[in-house]
Every structure is written in C-alpha cells, then in structure tokens.
C-alpha cells in the first residue's frame, strides 16, 4: 500500500471515531504540554541565573587572585612582571590589565564641588585592548590627564546639595561637561587601628574623557582612571607600600575563557572566571532539568494509557474489517503499520498542539509571574531584576516530542500486534 493511501486509511478511521480520538489527543496534548511547561521552568530559571551571572561579569575576563609556587603564596602585587608578560603572550589572550589602587581614601574636587572616588591606575593601552570604552572625549595622552567615571559629574556636589540630598531632595551635580576641566585629587592614607590621622596630598589632573556608562543600571562609576605610572608617585608621597593590585586577563572569545583558565591554573595561578561559576551552575541545572523532564514524562505515560485503550478498542471494533483485509491479501506487517501509524498520529497531533499551547503558557508565565514577584518585592528590591520563568528551547521541543510520540507508538504496539494476530475465519464470522 502506498504511503499516501496509508495516511488516507488512518484518516478515515480516525474520522469515524471523532470523539474518542479527540479525547485521546486531548490527553496526549495535556501530558506533553505538562512535560514541556514543567521542563521549561528549569530552562527558564537556568537562563535567568546565567544571564544574571553574565550581566554582572565581563564574560571574557579572568581574574588572577594570586599564585602559588608550592610553599610560597604570592599576592597579585607580588607576581613578577615577567610572568605577566608570559600570560600576555598566551594564545587567545588579548590583554592583561594590572589595576593598582593606592591604600588611600580619594576625593575629587572641582571648585566648591566634591565627591568620594576610587583611583584606578592602569595602562590605558591595555585597558583599551580589554574593551575599556569612553562615552565622550579621548584617552589620556599625557601624564597629567585622566578619564573619569560616567557618573562623576552628577556626583560632584556642593555642601548645600549634599544636605539637600540627605533630606531626600533631588540634586543635579556638576552642570556641563567635565572634558577639559581640571580636577583636584586628594588622597588620604587609610588609617590602621590606633594610628593618628596622617596628612593628605593633592594633585591636579585634566579630564580628557568620560568612561562608558556601566552595563547595569544600578552601578555607579565615580572612579578616576589614571596611568599606572602614578602608582609609585602616590605611594612615595603618602609613604604607602605597594597598594592593592588587581590582575585581569582578557580572552578574545568566551569559548576560549575555559582553556585559558585551565592553563593558568596549571601554572599555579589562583584564577576566577565566569566559566567557573557557570560550570558548577550548569551541573546543577542539568540535573534539575533532567528531573523535571522525568516528572513530566510520567504525565505522558498516564496519557499513554488513553492511547492504549483507544487503540485496543479500535482493534476490537475493527476485527471483522481486519479479517477482511487479511483475507483479500493484506500483509500482517501492513495491518501492524496502519495501527502503529494511527497511534503515532494521535501522538503527533497531540504533541503539535502541546508545543503550541506550551509556547502560549510560557509567554503568559513570563509576563504574569514576574509582575507578581516584582510587585511583592517592592520597587527598590525589584530594580534591575529581570526574571525569565519559562524558556522553551528547540532541544526541549525535540526531547518532549520524541518522548511523547515514542510513548504513543509503544502504547499502540500491543494493540497493533493483536490486530495482526486476528484469525481471519473468526473475524469473518463476526456480525456487522
């Protein structure tokens, strides 16, 4: 029998038992939709957490927190320059940024305005290679030039404005552009316990650029970015030691971060990258998703009882017809195939409907649930939080469809086998 005729044949049979077939399809749809929606919550939460991790990290950034040489533990500031040069030479490494911070409190002043700041001393050339970008202006070219954080201007307040802000009133900060302005940087060494307040020192810088706005809304950048050649000058003037040092290695692409991380670890470096965090998380969420798919499969198995019943009834009702078909020359494998195709069709239609319905439920859940969660958190806590409750990737659709159609075919297997075993003589004796 040609495939088209087989399709016609099962379509005619399904039409004859519309109500029974429709309710069976409904059960298959519900089972499969339950599986997809349930698992989609696992996929959705995984995405939410992954996005959160990626949003809060430079994904190609690897932080070097120190090094061990067996017995000796080295802080980032003590790692020899030659070793950092070696890292720079590694494949897929595009930049190694050494950020120094003097052990001192920093205050920026312009006229009668001031703000507390953070001094970042780094090689501007390496920073640019690593992706440091400006929202306006240009990178420093001379020793006395700096870049300031995106929020610096709005945080430069007069005393009156500071008071206003303390009272909850809105303040504007420095009006106009800081580019070309001369700012004063006052550094006061941090005090250790029992130490007397030491003298502070002041330097003047010309602002040549404003850093790009931070990726997250809630981040405020009031740093002052100056060349690393200032580090020894500050330390000497204030009588400080080396200060804090942050070493950041940048990979060309996210896929190479894991390889570089592993290589650095082998060399004894203490490193941290986003792949470390994602790796642990992926194991947890893969287990969670597998668990949810397993629970969802139980619903599909329950639906399969309906398919089994429907197909058994179909075989019983059509015993005479099957007998006639066998008598006039239909092969047992054709009979089996027709019944298997019918149960597969029920599974297929059920799955197709389930996929459409699941996407609908997913969209609805992603719209409704975050509203409920965020409203219960309050405006402040909810700021910057983005929640994805349900995600249906194509892999989930493939897995769920395979399970659903597979289970439908397995359910139809026994009735189909029973159909092939029908005795022609007994079947022909049945009343119409």
């Amino acid at each position, binding site marked *: *029998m040609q495939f088209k*005729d087989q399709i016609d*044949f099962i379509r*005619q049979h399904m039409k004859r038992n519309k109500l029974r077939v429709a309710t069976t399809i409904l059960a298959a749809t519900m089972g499969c939709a339950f599986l997809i929606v349930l698992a989609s919550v696992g996929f959705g939460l995984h995405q939410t957490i992954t996005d959160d991790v990626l949003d809060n990290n430079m994904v190609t950034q690897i932080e070097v927190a120190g090094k061990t040489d067996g017995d000796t533990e080295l802080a980032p500031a003590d790692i020899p320059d030659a070793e950092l040069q070696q890292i720079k030479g590694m494949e897929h490494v595009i930049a190694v940024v050494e950020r120094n911070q003097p052990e001192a409190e920093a205050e920026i002043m312009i006229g009668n305005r001031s703000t507390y700041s953070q001094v970042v001393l780094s090689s501007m050339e390496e920073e640019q290679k690593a992706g440091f970008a400006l929202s306006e202006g240009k990178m420093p070219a001379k020793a006395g030039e700096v870049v300031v954080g995106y929020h610096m201007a709005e945080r430069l307040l007069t005393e009156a404005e500071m008071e206003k802000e303390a009272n909850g009133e809105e303040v504007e900060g420095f009006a106009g552009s800081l580019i070309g302005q001369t700012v004063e940087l006052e550094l006061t060494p941090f005090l250790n316990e029992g130490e007397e307040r030491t003298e502070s020192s002041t330097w003047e810088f010309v602002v040549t650029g404003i850093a790009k706005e931070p990726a997250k809304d809630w981040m405020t950048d009031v740093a002052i970015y100056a060349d690393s050649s200032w580090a020894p000058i500050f330390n000497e003037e204030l009588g400080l030691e080396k200060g804090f040092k942050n070493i950041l290695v940048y990979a060309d692409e996210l896929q190479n971060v894991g390889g570089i991380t592993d290589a650095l670890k082998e060399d004894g470096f203490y490193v941290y990258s986003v792949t470390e965090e994602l790796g642990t998380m992926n194991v947890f969420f893969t287990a969670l998703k597998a668990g949810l798919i397993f629970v969802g499969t139980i619903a599909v198995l329950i639906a399969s009882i309906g398919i089994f019943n429907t197909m058994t009834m179909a075989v019983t009702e059509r015993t005479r017809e099957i007998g006639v078909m066998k008598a*006039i*020359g239909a092969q047992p494998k054709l009979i089996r195939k027709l019944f298997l195709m019918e149960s597969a069709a029920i599974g297929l239609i059920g799955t197709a409907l389930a996929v459409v319905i699941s996407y609908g439920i997913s969209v609805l859940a992603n719209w409704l649930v975050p509203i409920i969660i965020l409203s219960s958190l309050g405006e402040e806590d909810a700021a910057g939080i983005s929640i994805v409750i349900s995600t249906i990737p194509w892999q989930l659709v493939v897995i769920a469809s395979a399970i659903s159609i597979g289970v439908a075919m397995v359910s139809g297997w026994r009735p189909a086998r029973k159909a092939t075993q029908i005795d022609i003589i007994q079947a022909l004796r049945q009343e*119409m």
Partner: protein
Amino acid sequence: MIKIKDLQHHFKIGKKGNERHVPVLKSVTLEIGKGEIVAILGKSGSGKSTLLHILAGFMSPEKGSVVVNGQETAALKEAEQASFRLANFGFIFQNFQLMPGLNAFENVELPLKIKGMAETERKMKVQKLLEKVGLDQVAGHYPNELSGGQQQRVSIARALITDAPIILADEPTGSLDSETEKEILLLIQSLNKKLGLTFVIITHDEEVAAVADRQYRLHDGELVKGEQRHAV
C-alpha cells in the same frame, strides 16, 4: 490449476483435557481445471467451509496437500500466504464483507490499494469494472445505502479487480432473495465465460450449484461427485 490431495482435518470439541476429535474432512481429493465452475454442496457442518478455508490458506490442513498453480500453499508463511491470496484468489462472501466506512468505489479499490497500485491507474480500472458490473451509478454509495444484490455485486467486483484467476465464493447468494440470486448467478456464469475465471462455489443450495460445470457433495467429511451443469 487446483490440486487437492488426500486432505484430512478434524476439530477438537470439549474442554481441555477432555477433548473429542471430530473429523471434518476425510481424505478429500479433487482437481479443478482453469476456467471451470465447481460447486461443493453440503449441509451445515459438512465441512464445506473448512475446505474453502484450507483452499484459501486461512487455515492449514492436518494432512494432505493443496497445490494452486503449482504452489503448495501449506508451505507458505503467513506473509507469503497473504501475497499469494492477493495474486491468485478473489473472494465472494455470503454476507458480502464490505467495509462500512468505504463507499462502493473505495471497497472495490481496496485490494488495489493493498497491492500498491498507482492512484490514476487503479481509479480507471475500478471505474471500468463498476461499469461492467452495472454499479457505476452507485459508486459513491456506502454499503448501508445499497441493496443486498448491489452489495454482492460490489463484493464480486472487489474479487475481480486484482485479475485473480480463481474466485472462491462462500454461499454467494445466501443473503439474497431468489430474483437477485438469479442475477448474481448469471453474472458469475457470464464472468466465467468472458474472462475464463475459475469459480469454486461453496453452497447448500442445489439451484446455486446448478450453475457449476461439476458438482461435488460433502457428506460426513467425504467428497462425492454429483451432477453436471444445468441451465439457470
């Protein structure tokens, strides 16, 4: 064309462990040539249907052999039996055995679908045959919309559609009135003459058996030769 030799079969009656063996066919031997109409007469329970079922391959005999067109049918596996039936036999049943969900055209078309014939070719073939047996006007009607005679004509058309050389008819007029019975018997005779088809008719009715070239009677499982052809 058909050679039945020393065919023996019995049925088991009674509960398991306390069964009784009842012989149905006792050493039946028969040869049927191409283009013959042979009638097997017998009372209810005489074994005539069992003989037809063995001949058609619906069941296997306990002893003896059935050779159809040179093929020992008992040696065939189930799937091979099905193919063999499709190629060699057409069936006419007492209660027509039409598919209730298919119309007359589709019922006749069914064996060709099973055979895997292309749609255009088989539609033309069915159309021609329905015209030949006078059913073209009711081709779109479902079995429950047809008279008994029309249903049996559809059944005959279904038996003929595959060009099988042998038609096995089990009480072909058993569910028909006498007028329609005559019509159907005339159709069988005309098909036999025009197409040279071999008919094996199982019946309890002497009038039906009268269309046969040869008649046999099954009595107590033994085949006895009967009368020659009479006019219908």
